[in-house]
Each structure stands twice: as C-alpha cells, then as structure tokens.
C-alpha cells in the first residue's frame, strides 16, 4: 500500500461526512448561494464608483479589475471551504485532548488537522468567482486565451499554497496559545487585502503587499490571465510558495515539540 493512500482514504471518509451533514440544511445552502451572489454584485458595483471619474486606475480598467475581484472570491471561497473550518477547530483539539489522541496514532497530524473538515456552505463562491473573472475577461476584449492558462494555473496553485502556509502557521500559533479563535480573522483580513490589485494602493503599501505575498494571491494570477505578467514571476511564485509551505511546516513541527514539552 503506498504511503499516500491512507490519507486520501481518511479524508475521503471525512469529507463525505462534511458534505452530507451540510446538505441537510437545504434552505441555508440556497441562501448562502444567494448571499454569495449578492456580495459579488455589491463588489462589482462598488468598484464601478471609481470609474465615474477616470477610465483606469493605476493601469487597471474596470473589466480588468473584475478579473481580480472574481479571483478574490475564488480564493476566499476556497479559504472558507477548506482552511477556515479547520483553523477554527484547533483550539478545541487542544482543550479537549483530541490532539493528544491524534498524536498517538501512526499518522502525520498535520495533514489530518489541516484538511479534516470541508465547509461546503459556501461552495458557490469559488465557482461564481470564476464566472466574474470570465465576465471581466470578456468585457476587457481579451477573452480567455489558451496560452494564458498554464501560467495562470501555476500562479493560482502558488496562491493556494501560500494561503495554506498562512493557515498552517496560524494553526501552529493556536496550538501554542491554546485557542485564540480570533486567528481565523487574521486569515480573513489577509485575504481581504487581496480584493484589489496591489497597484491600486501605490507605494509604499504596494511594495509591502508584494513582499508579504498578498500580491501573489490574486494580482499575479490575474495578470497571467490578462497576459500582463512579468515572466520572472513564473519562477518566483512557485519558489515563494514552496518556501512558505516549508517554513510553515517547520513552524508547525516546532509548535508540536513545544506542546509535548520537548524543550522544557
């Protein structure tokens, strides 16, 4: 039996249970979808106010901005579905001894703790986000060019990996602090900063948001779709993503060692 398959099988069982339990409340499911659509329309309309006074902001036209906003909803939707439900439970695992139980099992706690729960209450967000992005691409006159897809896929994968790294680092913090449910808000706030392309903020904020890799979350993948990507980023983004995940994993392991009193 390969090393991978136990985790896939375990997650498969867990995710099936998450899905079926959320499906029980159809009314909430439908209203969540409606709420998602509402906030997307709200964002699209809200941003249009700027364009009453100018044709473009920091080199971004309105349709191009929609591409970014759509990606924001996609990334945020994935955050809410995969990362958030697990982050909010870490404190509980520590308080209730669940983490202890898990640590006596011959599995890597990191994978299970990161992906145990699947929140499909907002499953529409990632899909609707892509719709908004598509609309933006169409309105911008560019359309979706096949050549733009591979760089986009690469950068999007890097964005999700970065988000995972952030979540894992917060989980490590939650183990040490025993709870701190507000950490979920940190993750949320960070992603909110990616709602607009970073160029809209000008320096010094723009530089700051590029270094803390907020720009990698939505701005660069959007630029890939629009054919405006600096090619250097095709190398930089995966490197930054991989580096962040590695750093976060080290942080997680460090926090587990501290939890088990390894240093004390």
């Amino acid at each position, binding site marked *: 039996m390969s090393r991978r398959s136990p985790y896939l099988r375990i997650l498969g069982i867990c995710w099936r249970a998450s899905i079926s339990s959320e499906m029980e409340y159809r009314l909430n499911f439908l209203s969540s979808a409606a709420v998602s659509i509402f906030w997307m329309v709200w964002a699209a309309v809200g941003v249009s106010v700027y364009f009453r006074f100018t044709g473009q902001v920091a080199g971004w036209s309105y349709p191009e901005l929609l591409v970014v906003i759509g990606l924001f909803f996609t990334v945020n939707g994935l955050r809410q579905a995969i990362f958030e439900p697990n982050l909010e439970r870490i404190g509980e695992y520590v308080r*209730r001894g669940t983490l202890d139980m898990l640590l006596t099992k011959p599995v890597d706690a990191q994978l299970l703790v990161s992906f145990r729960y699947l929140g499909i209450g907002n499953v529409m967000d990632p899909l609707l986000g892509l719709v908004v992005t598509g609309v933006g691409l169409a309105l911008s006159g560019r359309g979706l060019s096949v050549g733009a897809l591979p760089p986009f896929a690469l950068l999007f994968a890097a964005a999700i990996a970065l988000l995972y790294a952030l979540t894992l680092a917060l989980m490590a913090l939650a183990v040490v602090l025993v709870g701190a449910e507000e950490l979920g808000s940190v993750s949320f706030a960070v992603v909110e900063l990616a709602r607009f392309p970073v160029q809209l903020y000008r320096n010094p904020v723009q530089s700051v948001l590029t270094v803390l890799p907020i720009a990698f979350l939505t701005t660069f993948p959007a630029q890939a779709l629009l054919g405006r990507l600096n090619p250097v980023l095709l190398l930089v983004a995966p490197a930054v993503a991989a580096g962040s995940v590695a750093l976060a994993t080290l942080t997680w392991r460090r926090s587990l060692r501290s939890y088990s009193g390894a240093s*004390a």
Partner: protein
Amino acid sequence: MSIEVHGLVKHFRVHQRKPGLRTSLRGLVRREYVEVRAVDDVSFSVAAGEVVGFLGPNGAGKTTTLKCLTGLLHPSEGTVRVLGHTPQRRESSFLRQISLVMGQRNSLFWDLPALDAFEVNRAMYRIGEPAFRAALDELIALLNLEPLLGKQVRVLSLGERMRCELAGALLHIPAVLFLDEPTLGLDVNGQAAVRSFLRDYNARRGATVLLTSHYMGDVTALAKRVLVIDRGTLRFDGNLAVLVEAHSPHRLIRLSLQRPVPVDTWSAYGEVDSVEGAVVTLRVPRAETTAVAGRLLADLPVVDVGIEDLPIEDVIRAVFAGE
C-alpha cells in the same frame, strides 16, 4: 519486558497567578514561574501480557506518566522504553503497536458514523481487509455495537461512545493498551461493561494493559498488580490484594434511618464515620462487613443501606502513613 521506566522525572514551569489587580497588572510585564514536579523519580517495569493499574488521586501524576509512555510528553529526566522503542520519537512502527484510550475525550472523528470512524482507523493503521473484518466482527460482538454502527459518535451516550472508542482502539490488535480514566463519567452499568470487556479481551489476546484510574473499582476488577502514585512519587508497587488488606482494612456502611437513633447505639456495631441527620456512616472491619450489616438491618429501623470501600484518598493516605 513490554515497558521499562527508570528514574522518570517530568517537571513543568507554571505561571503562578496571585490574586489582586495590582499583581495581575505586574504579571503582564514580569511573570513568576514555579516549577511543578508532576512526576518525580518513578521506576517500574511491566511484562508482556500483564494488566497493571495505576492508582492515585487527581493530580497525582498518573496521566503525565501515561503521556510519557505514549510519547505525548518528553521526559525531563530518566528513560522510558516501551516495546523496545523510545516513545517520544514517535516512530510509526511503535505507534502501530500501541493504543491509547482516554475517558471522556473526543476523538477527532466524532462526527462520523461509528462504522466510518472504524474505517478511518483501518486506514490509519494500514490494516489489511481480512484482518480488519475479523477484528471488527469480534469487537462488535463483544461490545454489542451492532445498533450503534450507523450513528454519529457524538450523539451516542457516554457509555456507548466508550465502547466504540475501545473497539476503534483495538482494531489493529495492539501489543500494549493504555487506558486513562476509561470509566470516568460512566454509570454503574457502563463501568461494569467496560471492566468485564477489558478482562475478557486481555484473557483472549494477551495484550499488556496499563490502566490509570482514581476509581478503586476499575483496578479491583482488572488488575492484580497495582502502582500507587501520589504527588509524583510511587508509593506502592505490588499485589492489589496485599495493598487492600494492609491499607484498607475497613469498609464503610452507610445507613438511612427512618428516625434518628441515640448516638451511643453505634458503638456495638462499629466506629462512626459521620452523622448527617438520618444518614449515618459507620466504619467496620472488612471481614465483618456483611455480618454487621445483617445485624443493623435486623435491629434498627433502616430505610436504605449501602456498602462502600474507603475513598481512594484514604487508602493512599494509609499507604503513606504505613511507610
């Protein structure tokens, strides 16, 4: 030897909290730490197939010792070897041979139906299909789990949940089973079910069992050998019967009376432990308990009677006083 512990010491630095607003504010800037010795120079060995009970009051260091044995905690000093492995290294080959069950703790998979939770364990321990089927069928039969399989673990009663936890913990047929307060919070039937199951299982499979509890009843039912731990140190290591005889020579008879009875009546039956209105507790030598109880029921207007062991704290106090 399945388990070997030499000179185990575990201490924690605990932030000392003092009352008062000024000291709390000062505490924001400068914290005072106190070193707590949860486990202080404990040594013992357990042979394969033995069932050993770890007795002690709350906070005695039982759970800390258990966590050191299962690799959850790094010892501050001393050595711990379980099945030839160093637990804190958390080697996969080690973890696959042990199991830990904790009373009243939630498993990560508690909102799954019980059967799915077992499948998860199968994946985690990489149990082959035929072995899994065989173990599962046996455990379902022994623990009477058939009606519970489709229910989510979290909606089960505490007793039902415990039975599921035990089953889940034994699917991979561990060589060593660690139990931490397994009957905590269970009613009398639940406790009896768990105890009889563990006894049967040990007889069938010969697993080494290390059980911590602050209920004397758990240990009496399961273990011949008992380790008494109090305030981090080992006070007694030996045969349970010896411990009981030597240090718990009395039992308590609790009576509810129809009407109060003059105080001097009791000297004929035993020592008075406490009187609360119409409820009287008498301390009686162990051997004479049934006889005295019989006389009390015959002679006095007794509405209700109960017979108990001395609380564990008293036994332990006696253990110390004996040394």
